């Protein structure tokens, strides 16, 4: 089988072919490493490629198979890991200069689960520094290009992970979603991304940005692949006190039995209006029509507090980040600047943070410091937490009436690199539809629903489910995906220009 054939296979297909002996894990890893070598200079999805580690892991899978041992559902499948998860022996930078060259002495729980499932980790993917951003332009190591148009952003903060999928550098990837950083890159690259219920995937070893919002999750090119990865990474972890101690919902089974027949699907009034691109709205309306044709009942919903979600998020996330990032003090690991024997630890810390952090990180640290300061605490952070309650209540009321909610994932398609760089508020609008879910802690998915007619760029459909009902995302997602692929005659990604 040729490399160009192998890299277009889905994760499920790769796993099946390795299990049956049609392909070896080493062949699969080599095909993807060759693809990375051929195109990543242009895409810049990866910050670090672990060629030797990937091939060693692949060889181990092949040996296991030769010995007749049982292989896991994703054994030998290559994966691109967001550079926010610690990886023993492999650099972890979180897209920041402050951790340049840092090689963690331990694996994140998610990393460990991937290794134990015999998934082949190809390397670490580019991201907005500390996952703060909606464009992957805030990486200290330069931006990632969107494989559909390399002059445009691949979404953020997990732009590297989604770009790796869309450029066929990897069939699977991992992202983290604090305000939409899995779903938003998925939407603008024509791939699938899932933010599981908060607490479903361990945060141990995942560098913290905003602890009450951060959630790791799967990125893939198909709904079934995302489900297979979801089952590998989810589940209770005693090392994370916010990890849910309950069985993982049956997401793979749901992805294999896609259907919306008889389901009630909510459309929220607040997820449209000003700021939404016409082509995005058009594709979304067609998706709602499709859901009807597939047997769903559409219910109009009013969630008035969603209008305040963006504001609440941009107070809560910076507040938690200003506290979490205090650990980057130049004393125990990472960069240290100005330690000339005369300066105090406090001065060295200030100089290190000035040098090591980029603009967006500094902006949010100061925003958080301001929102938490004594004179303003009640007006800003305290009020934002009340909004969080109202949003959760709006979701609760909505889910009394419907099984899932749908919306566009992002208000616009991928914008040109640099377009919003100096306008933080314009950048923050990219997260308009994804943020309510992070504040409430429930589950959501983005999957491709077509190209916007005006720019021929991918549009994402967001599906939102109640907490711990992640399987509904996959059931609906699989049905929608199958109907769209049948209508288009092929997966959407086939329409992307070749690199």
């Amino acid at each position, binding site marked *: 089988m040729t490399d160009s054939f192998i890299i277009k296979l889905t994760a499920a297909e790769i796993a099946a072919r390795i299990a049956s002996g049609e392909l070896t894990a080493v062949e699969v890893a080599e095909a993807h490493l060759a693809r990375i070598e051929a195109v990543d200079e242009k895409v810049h999805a990866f910050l670090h490629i672990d060629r030797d580690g990937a091939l060693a892991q692949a060889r181990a899978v092949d040996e296991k198979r030769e010995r007749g041992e049982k292989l896991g559902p994703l054994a030998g499948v290559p994966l691109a890991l967001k550079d926010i998860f610690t990886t023993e022996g492999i650099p972890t930078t979180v897209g920041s200069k402050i951790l340049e060259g840092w090689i963690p002495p331990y694996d994140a729980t998610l990393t460990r689960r991937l290794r134990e499932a015999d998934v082949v980790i190809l390397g670490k993917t580019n991201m907005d520094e500390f996952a703060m951003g909606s464009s992957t332009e805030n990486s200290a190591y330069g931006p990632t290009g969107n494989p559909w148009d390399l002059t445009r952003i691949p979404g953020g903060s997990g732009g590297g992970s989604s770009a790796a999928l869309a450029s066929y550098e990897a069939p699977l990837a991992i992202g983290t979603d604090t305000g939409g950083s899995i779903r938003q890159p998925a939407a603008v690259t024509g791939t699938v991304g899932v933010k599981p219920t908060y607490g479903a995937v361990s945060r141990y070893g995942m560098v913290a940005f905003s602890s009450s919002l951060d959630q790791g999750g799967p990125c893939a090119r198909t709904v079934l692949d995302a489900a297979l990865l979801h089952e590998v990474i989810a589940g209770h972890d005693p090392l994370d006190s*916010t990890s849910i101690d309950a069985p993982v919902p049956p997401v793979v089974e749901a992805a294999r039995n896609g259907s919306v027949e008889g389901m009630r699907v909510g459309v929220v009034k607040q997820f449209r209006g000003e700021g939404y691109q016409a082509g995005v709205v058009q594709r979304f309306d067609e998706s709602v029509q499709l859901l009807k044709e597939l047997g769903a009942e559409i219910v109009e919903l009013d969630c008035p507090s969603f209008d305040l979600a963006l504001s*609440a998020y941009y107070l809560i996330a910076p507040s938690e980040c200003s506290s979490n990032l205090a650990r980057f003090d130049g004393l125990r690991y990472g960069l*240290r600047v100005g330690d000339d024997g005369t300066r105090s630890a406090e001065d060295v810390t200030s100089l290190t943070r000035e040098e090591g952090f980029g603009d967006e990180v500094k902006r949010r640290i100061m925003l958080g*410091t301001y929102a938490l300061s004594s004179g303003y605490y009640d007006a*800003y952070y305290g009020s934002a*937490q*009340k909004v969080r309650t109202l949003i959760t209540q709006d979701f609760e009321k909505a889910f009394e009436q419907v099984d899932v909610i749908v919306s566009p994932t992002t208000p616009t398609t991928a914008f040109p690199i640099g377009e919003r760089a100096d306008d933080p508020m314009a950048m923050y609008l990219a997260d308009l539809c994804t943020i309510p879910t992070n504040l409430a802690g429930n589950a959501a998915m983005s999957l491709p629903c077509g190209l916007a007619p005006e720019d021929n760029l991918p549009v994402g459909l967001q599906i939102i489910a109640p907490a711990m009902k992640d399987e509904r995302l996959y059931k609906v997602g699989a049905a929608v995906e199958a109907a769209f692929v049948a209508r288009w005659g092929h997966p959407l990604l086939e329409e992307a220009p070749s690199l």
Partner: protein
Amino acid sequence: MPGITREEVAHLARLARLELKAEELDHFAGQLDDIIGAVARVAEVADRDVPPTSHPLPLTNVMRADEVRPSLTPEQALSCAPAQEQQRFKVPQILGED
């Protein structure tokens, strides 16, 4: 709502341990003011009788048994340190001379 001045940014930067450059103070003062202006709407709900939510999960303290378990070796723990001495993190002076 108060505007965010350059002096206020300088004060925040000190609290946050960021040695900002002069041009950054001006740059951030304008941007922070814009952002705070845009997000201040949350205060509209402040008067209402709404309980705050700090976390999506009802968290309870999780305790583990107090047992000795394998952990990082001193070499591993110090492997990423910018400076070390006698198996310890070496840090700049914490207390002043006087």
